[in-house]
C-alpha cells in the first residue's frame, strides 16, 4: 500500500514534465537559454491563448524550428522578434512593442492608475477638511 501510494505521488509530481517541445536541445547552452526565453514570449496564433512553447499545433512546431535555425545562424533576439512581427503582427508577441497601434494597450492601464489616484486624493482632501472630532472615542 505504502509502495503504491509513493508511486502514485511520484507520478503526480512528474506530470508537469510532459513537455510539448520534444526536439533536441541546442548544443550551445547559451543559445538554448535564449531559445527557451523566446519561445515563452511568442503566441501560437492558431491556438490563441498558448505560447509556442506550450502548443503542439503545426504552426508552433514550425516557428520553434525557425527560431532555432535563426539562433544558430547568429540572429539577435530583436531580429527574431522583428521577423515574427513583420509576418504575424504585434499579436504574435505576448509582450507587445510600443508603437502607434499598441499605444492603447500601454496607455490605458496608466490612465486607470491616474484616475484612481485622483479619486483617492479627492477623498483624502475631503476628509482632511472635516473638523477633527474624536471626543467620543
Amino acid at each position, binding site marked *: 500500500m505504502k509502495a503504491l501510494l509513493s508511486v502514485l505521488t511520484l507520478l503526480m509530481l512528474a506530470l508537469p514534465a510532459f513537455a510539448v517541445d520534444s526536439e533536441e536541445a541546442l548544443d550551445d547552452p547559451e543559445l538554448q537559454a535564449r531559445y527557451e526565453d523566446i519561445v515563452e514570449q511568442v503566441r501560437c*496564433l492558431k491556438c490563441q491563448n498558448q505560447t509556442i512553447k506550450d502548443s503542439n499545433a503545426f*504552426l508552433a512546431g*514550425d516557428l520553434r524550428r525557425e527560431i532555432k535555425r535563426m539562433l544558430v545562424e547568429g540572429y539577435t533576439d530583436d531580429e527574431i522578434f522583428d521577423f515574427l*512581427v513583420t*509576418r504575424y*503582427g504585434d499579436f504574435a508577441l505576448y509582450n507587445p512593442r510600443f508603437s502607434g497601434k499598441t499605444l492603447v494597450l500601454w496607455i490605458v492601464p496608466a490612465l486607470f492608475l491616474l484616475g484612481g489616484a485622483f479619486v483617492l486624493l479627492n477623498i483624502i482632501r475631503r476628509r482632511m477638511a472635516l473638523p477633527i472630532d474624536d471626543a467620543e472615542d
Partner: protein
Amino acid sequence: MWKYFAPLVIFGLFFLVLKVGMDDIREGKNVNELPSPLIDKQAPQFELPSVTDPSATVGTNDFAGKPVVLNVWATWCVGCRQEHGFLMELAESGDVPVYGLNWRDTQPEAQGFLQQLGDPYVGSAFDGDGRVGIDWGVYGAPETFLIGADGTILVKHLGPLNWPLWREKFVPHLGPAEASR
C-alpha cells in the same frame, strides 16, 4: 452633478465595448481572424515544386502582371473541403487565376485530393515543411490571399470562402475586367 452621471457614463462605455464584440459574433464574423501586417506590402517571393507536376515549379514569378488568388490548402483541413466547390466555380469563371499553396501536407495525399475532388489551381506549390507559410504569416488553412497586378497583397481571408464573402471582400479590389460576376 458629475457624481450622478459618472456611473451612467461608465456603464455606457462598457455597454458599447461589449456590444461591438457581440455584434461581430452575431454577424458570423470570424473572431479569430487577425489583421495581417502583410496587407499592402509586396508579396513574399517563393519558388516551390509543383504538387501535380514533379518536374515543374510554382512561384511568385508566375503571378507577375496580373491579379491572382493564392489559396493556402491542405488535405487534412476541413474548411478546405468546404470551400473546394467554390474554388472550382471561381476557376471556371475565369475571373482571376487561382494558385494554391499546399501547406504542411504530403505530395501523394495532395495529388489524391485533387484527383478526387477536381483541381481548381493553375498551379499548386508544395510547401511540405511550412517554411513559405511562415513568410506569408499563415497560421491556419484555409487562407486566401488576393495579390494585385503590381505584386502587393490586397486581401487576406481566413476560413472557407464562398461567393457572398468573395463579392464582399475580394471583388471591390478587382478591376472591372475581372469583376464581371
